[in-house]
């Protein structure tokens, strides 16, 4: 005669293994289910990204050659290379980097230092977070209204730098702030106990500690800026002009060709620029942005290895 022992009887009999076995089975089932779910979704996302990349590489790779990368367009842009666009994009990035990094870090430091105590700073934080989510076209129009027209800088490299700087600032400010917040307070205590002032502790201890995180933020936000056409659309861009080929002080006041704008225009005016050139430029831009992101990761791992 077999009677199912009740739960209480089993507990009293000390059948711990048998009790555990049931839970183990349930746990295994749940693990399998969540692995499948997350694994599936993850794999799908990765697949999608790879598909996108694969198409661009497939279409763009045949065009890539030293000549394509180093020569200006020829024959009314229907042939030749895209060097002026690459150079323009690099110029835009360089100036933006030099302007946005110090200003953004300074802003992040202010928010991290005074953010919690003052209401104005909390408001600033909220505003910066909102700006980080503002669509790039808004920056483009702002740059047009203020830098191009009001300050009479014209459609120029300079206006592009200023607009892109505004565009990348919010992300730099926010990453600087959050990187500074990860600094252990034991380190700050250590600095203050040595007699360092608040600012010395910040510059000598907190900022170096947070620097890898800050630089990651800087590069990621520049990468984003590099790929956006709309902030530079009305402020800095020109499709192509032969004046592009010399560099000098006057370049600052002249518009520059750049990759995103070239792509947008080239696509908008069908028949002028042949498809294979567009795909090649597309691949070049993606590689540029990926290289920047790779640099960010490299900086972070190197810094971590150095400190730990």
């Amino acid at each position, binding site marked *: 005669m077999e009677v199912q022992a009740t739960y209480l009887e089993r507990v009293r009999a000390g059948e711990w293994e048998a009790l555990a076995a049931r839970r183990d089975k349930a746990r295994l089932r749940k693990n399998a289910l969540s692995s499948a779910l997350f694994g599936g979704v993850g794999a799908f996302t990765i697949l999608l990204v790879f598909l996108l990349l694969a198409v661009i590489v497939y279409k763009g790779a045949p065009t890539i050659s030293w000549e394509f990368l180093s020569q200006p367009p020829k024959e009314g842009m229907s042939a030749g290379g895209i060097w002026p666009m690459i150079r323009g994009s690099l110029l835009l990035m360089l100036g933006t980097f030099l302007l946005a990094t110090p200003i953004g870090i300074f802003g992040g430091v202010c928010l991290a230092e005074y953010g919690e105590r003052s209401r104005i700073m909390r408001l600033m934080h909220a505003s910066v977070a909102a700006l980080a989510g503002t669509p790039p076209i808004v920056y483009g129009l702002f740059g047009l209204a203020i830098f191009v027209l009001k300050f009479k800088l014209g459609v120029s490299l300079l206006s592009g730098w200023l607009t892109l700087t505004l565009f990348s600032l919010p992300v730099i400010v926010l990453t600087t702030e959050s990187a500074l917040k990860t600094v252990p307070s034991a380190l700050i205590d250590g600095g*203050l106990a040595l007699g360092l002032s608040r600012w010395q502790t910040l510059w*000598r201890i907190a900022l*170096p500690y947070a620097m890898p995180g800050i630089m990651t933020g800087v590069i990621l936000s520049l990468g984003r800026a590099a790929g956006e056409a709309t902030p530079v659309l009305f402020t800095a861009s020109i499709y192509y002009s032969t004046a592009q080929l010399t560099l000098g002080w006057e370049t600052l006041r002249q518009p520059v060709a750049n990759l995103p704008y070239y792509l947008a225009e080239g696509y908008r005016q069908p028949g002028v620029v042949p498809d294979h050139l567009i795909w090649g430029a597309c691949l070049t831009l993606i590689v540029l942005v990926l290289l920047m992101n790779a640099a960010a990761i490299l900086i972070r791992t190197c810094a971590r290895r150095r400190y730990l």
Partner: protein
Amino acid sequence: MMTAAVATPAKTAIRTEGLSVSYNGKPALKSVNIEFYENTVTALIGPSGCGKSTLLRALNRMNDRIPDAVTQGKVFVNGINIYDRGVNLTRLRREVGMVFQKPNPFPMTIFENVALGPRLHYGLRGRALEEVVEDALRKAALWDEVKDDLKKKSGLALSGGQQQRLCIARMLAVQPRILLMDEPCSALDPISTQKIEELIVELGKQYTVIVVTHNLQQAARISQYTGFLMYGELIEWGETRQLFERPQRQETEDYIRGRFG
């Protein structure tokens, strides 16, 4: 209530007068009067939460860091009340160094960890700086272990015990005369603990050393003077040997007997 020391053996380096600290209005330290002597190790003992760290942090005004903390009373360092208006915190902390319970080396090389203080405070560079760093590392009994990769290795790559000695060296390099240590061994293994204990005894010959410890045997081993705190009150203080062998107060006796079993 207070056990006056027998003949004062040395000059007083720090003296507190009615020192009270409260957090959010809750008293953590109640009107403490104690003296710490030059070239002497004083241990602070007592059950956890009795206010040992609070007392220590009041001596170099690290409690200023805690917005909820309110300090009353006086602390005299070199005859100056450090809670007076206009006291220069940098100068105070140059004079009164501190080591924490958990080693907290900065994320930089061993050399930079020690060099930071003297470089910023005294503008030292080059050979002078290197000599000061070496001297501090020797005093902290760490020099022989790190001299070969001083400028290559991060302070964080050291073992826990070495990290704590690095923090001691970092403090010494600023040339303080009073050293505060808050349970400096509680995060360390027995061998590292023994090294730090030996180091504290050695430092006690040249500095005013104040060590918080929850380990009574340790207090007995390393200190000449001991203060016993309970519920934020300084129950008694005096020569270590006397406090352990002939405590004046019942609470002290109970605590010591309870701990020694």
